[in-house]
């Protein structure tokens, strides 16, 4: 139950904060907010030993039991890691934001969004129910959207917010479809039950589709190539948000999803290749592009993309463990999964740290453009130190946790390149190569962060204020993170045993209990391939960093200058333009066109189903035909056919009258006196109405239209006539049932009337008559209002109080 409260605590606070903000309208509000993740963090830590020992915490609160959608929460090792990150980094970020954000900002909104996000993110990682997970998943997108557009008056913020929303929701919808497919295979929304059923799913036809769709959700959320494009634009958000959502937590929801679904889909070639390849490409593309950025936050964004790719690829490598036969290999592969989680934790620490430092720089100088920065070391020594810690860790240098992670990555990449169960040709040999190249670029941009910002010449003319060291409060959070960066390096196995290790059974349930699943991490493990690779990275990195000026121009060459952003913009712009073009083409606003559509559809659909399905069986049988009936048919046809061609509307109205009166005659032939009576009167009154209205309308002019239009009109008209005739002739010959009318012939005994029609109108079907009276009344009063209530002159058509 505490778990439920834990998830809903942030939501409750999110609702309270805006109200509280009215009472405490300054940055002190932040302390109330910070209490939330702190309390939750403490709570999680308190159950950490229990989780570490392999137990789980579960609770289910019914939500929509009818649909099998319940708030069922589940904390195991995997969700625990994320829970700790969400609350831990969350607390630090809130703390940082208290000093970072200006008092003038609408802090109430800001913290409400942050708390909303926090709750949603906790929901994502704790949910056992796919639909609930999805619900929280979308909620993270929404809160991210709101936070990116926190400064919504800025165009860039809006652009970034929209982009992230569209891409992540797109992925989310795909993921939902995938979940539904899973449900149709398993009959349950519970993740644990799904995992339990996993072996049986592999033969299901929808298995692959569901897999791809789930990956789509993960990749969009975790900014994997080619969906990564939203993340750089998300940097429009205030820096605490970037640190929290867009590096430490939300973007890792995709990682979580992939890890969570590894037991379901892992061990499949498609999963292995897609996750690994997408990850590795993202890693390369992200790091490569990070180097060319001038905005520090953009650089960090690309670096985040790249490292998310790294983690993703590690998860991909790890999934191979699930199909490999028993033996040391599969433990080795599974260690890639361990590395992924380990790297992810590390990434949260050093990337959070870097974002905070960039935020400090931005805060102090008002710019993040490295072309305007330099030489800040002297002015901001603490920040500089922290930046070095973060950057070097990210570059994979000791004595920082990044080094350990990178080593493990290389190790996994090398391991997977040979002897993986899906190896086809030498494709998997690319993994270590690409990983290495990407690491070189990673090294370069880490150096850029440190050198271009803090070292080199100062450029005071390019910034408009004199920078100082950040306020102490603002430094607290980065310092804590830096402590972790260093601390994990020295005590990696503490994290391994208590935090990462317990997650392994969740990712690799079939391997649980295998020795070596949780590797012993050592900073020094002798001179081996990974170490050599790292040395290579440093060497190549330094050379390339120094010569950056010279080779930088390759970014202007294809395919390096290719920008997927342009694809996105083209897609959006093209869709907008295309839709305008298409829609305005057929939505002409011309009634004639609309009638053409309707009748063409009628001809095609009804005509098709009459003539093409063999339904058409005309019955030309006639009992007897009287000459005078034919005469009236001719009269009416004659009058009708003349109508479109007469020159005056009076004539047309008269002809319409002829039709009306002649119909009355037909009603006589059909033994329908009541009809004949009504028809005659109505026809006259209608004619009078036409005459009354003609006074307000100009006489009609000859119908001017291109011959083509007239021919089309004619063809449609003839088609409609023929089709109705065809239908009617067929219906005439359809003689299966008797009408129910025989019943009404007892009208006198049943309803006390001799006039059957009248008995039907007044009794058997009086309800129709009653409503018809209402229709008539509405029309009458409607005409009255139409005439009496005229639009105000010059009032436009926007009215209202």
């Amino acid at each position: 139950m505490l778990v439920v409260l834990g998830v809903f605590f942030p939501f409750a606070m999110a609702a309270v904060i805006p109200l509280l903000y009215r009472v405490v309208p300054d940055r002190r509000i932040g302390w109330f907010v910070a209490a939330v993740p702190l309390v939750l963090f403490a709570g999680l830590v308190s159950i950490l030993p229990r989780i570490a020992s392999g137990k789980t915490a579960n609770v289910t609160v019914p939500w929509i039991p009818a649909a099998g959608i319940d708030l069922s929460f589940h904390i195991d090792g995997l969700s625990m890691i994320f829970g700790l990150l969400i609350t831990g980094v969350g607390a630090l970020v809130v703390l940082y934001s208290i000093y970072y954000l200006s008092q003038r900002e609408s802090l109430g909104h800001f913290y409400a969004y942050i708390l909303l996000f926090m709750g949603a993110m906790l929901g994502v990682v704790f949910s056992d129910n796919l639909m609930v997970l999805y619900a929280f998943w979308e909620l993270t997108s929404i809160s991210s959207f709101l936070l990116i557009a926190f400064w919504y008056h800025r165009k860039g913020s809006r652009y970034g917010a929209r982009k992230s929303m569209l891409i992540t929701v797109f992925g989310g919808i795909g993921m939902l479809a995938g979940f539904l497919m899973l449900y149709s295979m398993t009959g349950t929304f519970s993740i644990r039950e799904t995992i339990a059923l996993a072996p049986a799913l592999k033969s299901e036809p929808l298995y692959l589709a569901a897999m791809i769709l789930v990956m789509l959700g993960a990749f969009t959320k975790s900014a994997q190539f080619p969906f990564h494009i939203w993340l750089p634009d998300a940097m429009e958000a205030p820096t605490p948000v970037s640190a929290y959502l867009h590096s430490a937590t939300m973007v890792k929801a995709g990682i979580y999803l992939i890890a969570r679904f590894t037991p379901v889909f892992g061990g499949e070639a498609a999963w292995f290749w897609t996750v690994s390849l997408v990850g590795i490409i993202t890693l390369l593309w992200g790091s490569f592009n990070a180097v060319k950025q001038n905005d520090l936050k953009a650089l960090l964004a690309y670096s985040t993309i790249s490292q998310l790719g790294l983690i993703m690829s590690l998860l991909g490598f790890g999934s191979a463990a699930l199909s490999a036969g028993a033996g040391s290999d599969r433990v080795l592969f599974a260690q890639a999964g361990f590395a992924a989680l380990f790297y992810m934790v590390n990434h949260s620490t050093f990337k959070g740290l870097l974002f905070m430092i960039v935020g400090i720089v931005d805060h102090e100088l008002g710019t993040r453009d490295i072309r305007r920065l330099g030489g800040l070391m002297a002015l901001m020594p603490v920040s500089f130190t922290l930046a070095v810690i973060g950057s070097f860790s990210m570059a994979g240098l000791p004595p920082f946790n990044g080094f350990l992670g990178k080593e493990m990555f290389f190790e996994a990449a090398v391991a997977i390149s040979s002897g993986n169960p899906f190896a086809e040709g030498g494709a998997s040999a690319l993994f270590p190569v690409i990983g290495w190249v990407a690491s070189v670029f990673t090294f370069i941009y880490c150096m850029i962060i440190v050198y271009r910002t803090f070292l080199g010449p100062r450029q005071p003319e390019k910034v408009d204020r004199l920078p100082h060291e950040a306020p102490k409060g603002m430094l607290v959070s980065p310092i804590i993170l830096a402590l972790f960066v260093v601390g994990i390096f020295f005590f990696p196995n503490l994290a391994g045993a208590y935090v990462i290790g317990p997650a392994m059974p969740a990712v690799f349930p079939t391997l649980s209990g295998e020795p070596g699943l949780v590797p012993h991490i050592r900073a020094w493990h002798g001179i081996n391939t990974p170490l050599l690779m790292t040395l290579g990275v440093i060497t190549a990195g330094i050379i390339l960093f120094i010569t950056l000026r010279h080779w930088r121009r390759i970014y202007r060459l294809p395919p390096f200058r290719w920008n997927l952003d342009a694809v996105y913009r083209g897609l959006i712009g093209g869709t907008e333009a295309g839709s305008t073009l298409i829609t305005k083409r057929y939505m002409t606003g011309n009634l004639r066109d609309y009638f053409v559509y309707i009748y063409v559809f009628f001809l095609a659909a009804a005509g098709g189903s009459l003539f093409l399905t063999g339904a058409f069986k005309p019955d030309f049988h006639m009992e007897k035909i009287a000459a005078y009936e034919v005469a009236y048919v001719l009269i009416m046809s004659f009058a009708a056919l003349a109508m479109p061609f007469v020159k005056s509307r009076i004539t047309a109205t008269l002809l319409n009258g002829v039709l009306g009166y002649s119909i009355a005659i037909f009603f006589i032939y059909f033994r329908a006196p009541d009809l004949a009576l009504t028809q005659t009167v109505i026809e006259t009154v209608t004619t009078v109405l036409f005459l009354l209205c003609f006074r307000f309308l100009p006489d009609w002019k000859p119908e001017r239209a291109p011959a083509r239009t007239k021919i089309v009109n004619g063809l449609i008209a003839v088609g409609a006539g023929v089709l109705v005739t065809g239908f009617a002739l067929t219906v005439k010959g359809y003689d299966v049932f008797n009408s129910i009318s025989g019943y009404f012939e007892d009208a006198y005994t049943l309803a006390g009337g001799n006039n059957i029609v009248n008995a039907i109108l007044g009794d058997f079907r009086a309800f129709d008559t009653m409503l018809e009276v209402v229709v008539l009344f509405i029309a009458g009063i409607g005409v009255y209002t139409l005439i009496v209530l005229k639009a105000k002159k010059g009032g436009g058509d926007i009215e209202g109080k």
Partner: protein
Amino acid sequence: MVNTLMLIALILFSFTIVIAVYRIIRGPSKPDRVIALDMIGVNLLASIAVVSCLLETKAFMEVILILGILSFIGTIAFSKYIERGVIVERRHNR
């Protein structure tokens, strides 16, 4: 025989109506057309009388009367329209 005569009468009326329809289409003046409509009205009325005899039913007597009434109203309305362009006035201007 009686029936045959009646049928002949019916056909004659029908011919009249055909010619009247022709007059409606042809015009040339509006009153011509109204006259033709009026003529159609009364001929229909006569036709119904004959049909009633043929079918030996009194069910259509009301229709005959109604048709008489309405063809009168219609003619008056059309005439007034032709004469004044308006058929119901707020206040007769005389």
